[in-house]
């Protein structure tokens, strides 16, 4: 195509258009729901279409290596800031995940959200735009903008539709991430000035900034600021303390998006920006990342074991699972990195499903305490089946998706850092313990309280079935995802 079709911009801003349209028909809840569904499905279809027809074939003119789709426009000339979007295999996988989980989140909230419905869906869609922007931008200023824009809708989602200490959690979430991001902004500007002074051309473009010769000491500081911002989102131990609160108090779809998508932005940004910009400093920080990852895996599992609240339990399990992603990134070998990518997708799908399940139970009984339940298998076989299924997936049972990611990460890490891999393995054992406890406490055993539960509705069943199919598919046939991330990872690691 000579005249470029701005497919990436459309991908990014389609949800925002949906959000604005929902604002326009402010009065009707039903219309808002429908519009949100239509736009999220359209976004998913569009991303799949982009994946099938555009991605493999085209190679935009002037695109940096690996970026099959690319858009570049001047934006703020005074600072050399450009509107640059690019998509390689890693971005594509993340975009597909975002669009998929976005649609899931809309369906999950269908009946649960009863107040201020239009505003809710508008914020949900607006957040998708922020997340997609993070996964696609190649200009650090633009990236920073999207990075911050994600915060606001999530802040409102937790604060308005959340439960419990929703305001405390919303503010904590916002301030935590905001502080980290602002320090990263200082680092971005410093890097920009350094690069400009060296090369004479002032630019925020990633492709140019990677060529900056950063003095070692300065690089450590700058990388530390980047790592802080990313580690908070990740979240890496000990910066995870906002996460259990935010997850627990968020509405169900909020938890799904937080776990499945927002956490991934931290990991993605570390791979896309952190390592390529500061290879030396990243290398110097690797032991820290290993330690944090290994400790986080066990710590998250350990604390999850002690939780009485199912949502909190799943939240801590996220800390544990994201530790594997961190481990894979720390190892920085092709196998470990592709494992980390797999783990990101898998954790997104599986944990999203678990949060959805907990939300469904919560809708029925208004309780998330494990002690409330027990022996529900007889009453709600379908719900219980999916509960067991996703718990097994989360625990890393072979044949289901999480196993693939964790296995690849461990294999990749073992070659580079056997001690870290061994430590992480301990975490897998702990994962089994808390999963078994959850399954046993909720599904089996004797009834603690006489609950009148209804089984899954068609909407809920369909939703979970789709997620389960994805789980199985990725578990037995992860090839396509691995194939997509292979070339970008080869570029990143320099190993072919």
């Amino acid at each position: 195509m000579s005249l470029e079709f701005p497919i990436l911009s459309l991908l990014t801003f389609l949800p925002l258009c949906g959000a604005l349209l929902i604002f326009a028909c402010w009065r009707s809840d039903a219309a808002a729901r429908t519009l949100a569904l239509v736009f999220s499905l359209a976004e998913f279809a569009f991303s799949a279409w982009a994946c099938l027809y555009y991605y493999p074939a085209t190679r935009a003119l002037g695109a940096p290596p690996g970026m099959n789709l690319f858009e570049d426009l001047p934006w703020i000339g005074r600072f050399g800031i450009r509107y640059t979007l690019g998509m390689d295999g890693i971005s594509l996988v993340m975009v597909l995940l975002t669009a998929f989980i976005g649609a899931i989140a809309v369906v999950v909230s269908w009946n649960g959200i009863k107040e201020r419905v239009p505003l809710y869906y508008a914020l949900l869609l607006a957040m998708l735009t922020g997340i997609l922007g993070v996964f696609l931008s190649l200009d650090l200023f633009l990236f920073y903008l999207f990075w911050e824009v994600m915060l606001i809708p999530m802040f409102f989602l937790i604060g308005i539709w959340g439960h419990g200490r929703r305001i405390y959690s919303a503010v904590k979430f916002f301030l935590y991430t905001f502080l980290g991001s602002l320090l990263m902004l200082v680092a971005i500007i410093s890097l920009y000035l350094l690069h400009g002074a060296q090369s004479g051309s002032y630019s925020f473009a990633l492709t140019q900034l990677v060529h900056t010769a950063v003095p070692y000491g300065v690089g450590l500081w700058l990388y530390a600021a980047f790592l802080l911002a990313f580690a908070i989102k990740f979240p890496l131990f000990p910066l995870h303390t906002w996460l259990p609160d935010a997850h627990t108090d968020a509405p169900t779809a909020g938890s799904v998006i937080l776990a499945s998508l927002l956490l991934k932005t931290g990991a993605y940004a570390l791979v896309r920006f952190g390592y390529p910009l500061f290879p030396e400093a990243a290398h110097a920080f690797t032991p820290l990342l290993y330690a944090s990852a290994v400790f986080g895996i066990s710590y998250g599992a350990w604390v999850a074991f002690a939780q009485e609240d199912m949502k909190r339990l799943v939240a801590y399990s996220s800390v544990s699972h994201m530790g594997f992603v961190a481990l894979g990134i720390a190892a920085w070998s092709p196998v470990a990195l592709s494992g980390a990518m797999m783990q990101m997708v898998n954790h997104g799908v599986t944990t999203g499903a678990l949060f959805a399940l907990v939300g469904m139970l919560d809708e029925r009984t208004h309780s998330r305490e494990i002690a409330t339940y027990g022996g529900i298998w007889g009453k709600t076989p379908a719900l219980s089946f999916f509960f067991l299924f996703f718990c097994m997936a989360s625990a890393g049972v072979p044949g289901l998706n999480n196993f693939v990611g964790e296995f690849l990460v461990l294999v990749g890490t073992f070659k580079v850092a056997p001690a870290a891999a061994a430590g992480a393995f301990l975490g897998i054992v702990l994962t089994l313990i808390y999963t078994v406890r959850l399954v046993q406490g909720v599904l089996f055993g004797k009834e603690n309280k006489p609950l009148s539960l209804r089984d899954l509705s068609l909407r809920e069943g369909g939703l979970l079935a789709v997620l389960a199919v994805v789980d199985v598919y990725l578990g037995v046939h992860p090839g396509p995802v691995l194939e997509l991330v292979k070339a970008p990872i080869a570029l990143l690691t320099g190993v072919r």
Partner: protein
Amino acid sequence: MTLADAYSLMPIIIAGCAAVLVLLTGPLLHLRSSYGIAAVASLTAGLWVPLVAPAAGAGVPGLVLTPLAKLLIPILCFAATLTLLFSYGYNARRDIKGEEYPATILFSLFAMCILPCATNLLILFLALESIAFSFYILVSIDLAREQSGEAGLKYLLMGAVAAALIAFGLALIFAGSGTLALHATLAGTGNRVIISAGWGLIVIGIAFKLSLVPAHLWTPDVYQGAPTPVVAFLSTGSKFTAAAALLMLLAFAPPLPELHLPLYMLSLLSMVIGNLAALLQKNIKRMLAYSSIAHMGYLALALLTGSKDGYSAVLLYGAIYTAMNLAAFGAIAALSATEDRALISDYAGLGFQAPLRGGVLALAMLALAGVPPTAGFIGKFFIFYSALKGGETTLAIIGIVSAAASAYFYLKVVVQLYMHPSEENAPAAATPVEALALCVAALAIIIVGVFPTPLMDLVDLALR
């Protein structure tokens, strides 16, 4: 004075003549017409420069349309117009009567338009003090309320001291340099000791006007007591012109090595103390007063780099801050009944009960916190960029950490607006005029946030 000169100075003429016209016709007309005339006059004055585009450089002795004036006059007129639009409904509810209110706003606008045109230290001083003088009246114009009078007295006493300091400082600079002309170059001439002493006094005086710590103590009381639209104008127009005056003086006689330490301390203290004190406030106007102190600290941070980038950042931030504060105080004014909603907790649930006003207030808070994609982010970015480029890394990091902390108190307002249930009935509907003014301010915040390039170009032109 040729026609071209008159053309180029037309905004000043319009503002001045309209002020007199409003005063003369006030007794004969309905009050609404007086506000209408004033608003139209200030809008015309503001549109004159961009539409007629008079050549810079023409003027009369002492007054020339400088590039700086071409930037400042439209922004100040924009602020005055919005203030007038907010004031009409607010003053009607509070029973503040009389055509002297719009006339005084116009008079202060007249002085504000003169200030960037001044080519002479004395004219600069007169403009600066005329602005302060009109605000002495405006702050205490709410005669029925004690608070307003108290605020006016505090402002007058502190302002008189500041005026004396600036006057003496200018006198010392004159004594040291032997010239009053602002465009004379002083390189290497004059008595450096005396000029520096003069500079010291001027910096203290301007610090008062910008309410930089430790010259900030009047700010919370005045903001709390004065009518809210007046605060909107005071915190934008008056502060922006004071910053511009400092820029003009810096271009005239730049003894930067000596100025660095005082400005450094002013900036540091203002950013830290302003943001910390704002954390503790329960009254929204006092909170915004401390926030304003912190924001002026950011301005000082950009100023003290002494670079062209820093000066550009000051002007850009001044313009953006004008839009943000007009939106914030405008929404507060539009939400008030016979009394202001004083406490932050008085805003509970208003985001849903009054979507437009609540939404604009929330937007203004997020913009003040510097969250993209609002203009506030672009402004902060430019400030910290210029600080880092100017080598002020430590101060920039202190500033950015304090900015992160400041998000907490801005969020407090947003939390009240959207996350707390309302305890009372919905407030009366906003008048169309208020709604229009709020929409304009909100649009300015978003448009500049997404497409800042035109404004940046204008700012760079102004410093040429």
